């Protein structure tokens, strides 16, 4: 981030004429003004899209689309809120994100018949985990709660008693009852 900021500080002053040119475009619809904006920004947008990981061919296509959007959205440009470079940067960025996400969603639709990744495990660990899950889900809430507080939070029994406002003896009995049920996951009978 430090490098980014120092680069920012060393950058020459913002070229305000581009902002004026873009702001005027909404009224004038002047094709030669548009051509000037295109000649300046399109090659930079293309360079940016290539840096984002697009192939040169895709970057070419999307840079043209972005610059067409500059024409179509010029009336939304507010020079009080951003300069032309920032506005065009946002436009290109959003187009690129939209494009990448559309493609990703299609990819996941193709994978639709794959098993649920949450349930796709290997070997014994998976069997244990699944059975453990079922066992914990089947626990009464009071038992699950003390198990959490002791195993996941490393709290002492008296701390748990204090935290949930029950006698120490009740904490221990809940833990014992819960643990009995979970031990059965490994096939150990009580």
């Amino acid at each position, binding site marked *: 981030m430090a490098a980014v900021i120092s*680069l920012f500080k060393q950058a020459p002053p913002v*070229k305000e004429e581009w902002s004026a040119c873009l702001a005027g475009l909404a009224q004038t619809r002047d094709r030669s003004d548009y051509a000037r904006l295109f000649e300046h920004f399109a090659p930079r947008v293309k*360079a940016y899209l290539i840096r984002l990981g697009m192939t040169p061919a895709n970057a070419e296509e999307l840079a043209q689309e972005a610059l067409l959007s500059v024409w*179509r959205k010029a009336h939304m440009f507010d020079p009080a809120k951003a300069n032309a470079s920032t506005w*065009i*940067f946002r436009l290109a960025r959003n187009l690129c994100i939209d494009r990448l996400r559309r493609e990703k969603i299609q990819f996941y639709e193709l994978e639709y018949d794959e098993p649920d990744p949450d349930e796709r495990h290997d070997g014994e660990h998976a069997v244990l985990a699944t059975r*453990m899950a079922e066992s*914990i*889900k089947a626990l009464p809430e009071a038992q699950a709660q003390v198990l959490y507080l002791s195993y996941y939070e*490393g709290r002492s029994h008296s701390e748990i008693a204090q935290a949930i406002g029950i006698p120490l003896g009740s904490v221990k009995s809940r833990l014992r009852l819960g643990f009995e049920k979970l031990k059965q996951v490994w096939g150990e009978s009580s």
Partner: protein
Amino acid sequence: MNIRHHLDDATLLAYAAGSLSEGMSLLVASHIDRCPHCQARLQQAEAVGGALLDELPPVALAPDALEQVLALLETEAGAPAAKPAVSTRAPLLDGNIPAPLAHYLDKPLDELEWRTLVPGVRQLDLRLGGPGTTRLLRIAPGLSVPHHSHRGNELTLILRGSYSDELGRFQAGDVADLDEQIAHQPISDSGEDCICLIATDAPLRFSGLMGRLVQPFIGL
């Protein structure tokens, strides 16, 4: 909304640069939607992007690119775009759902199809794909998420209720922006369920034996 926990600069820059995953972007957008402080910082971060665009060595387009686009200007493809309508969906759906998140949900929070992980802890996976996960998590008062650290980054946005952990108390609108330096164990600490949006860019790492055993089914 009195927001006290904000996005990290690095996260904000990554968002402005468009380099966050869809889920993390969704979470960042949902926080910014309700956080004037981060809205102002985002404008700065985007201005960095604009300045960098100015400085990039240009890459020439096809020789006929300008000609092709000019030919489209007076056609339907070049017609002025309509201003995007202000989204009224979010408040209609549920006052606790920020506008960006409303695009991903079809019901108020209480009517969603929550899946019970363990008693008192329910989740809804938004199934956005990618290397990490994006989920809504709903934790009953007094319960906690297992102690864990992160391989990558974990962003949490509180939508309703609150939780406390080693870093403080997080309430609606607050965002916890954590990386692998931090291990924590949030505990839902108000009288109502704590509902949060969580986006990670890598699976979490649970600390204890039990955590590791149940990780595959919790899958946080």
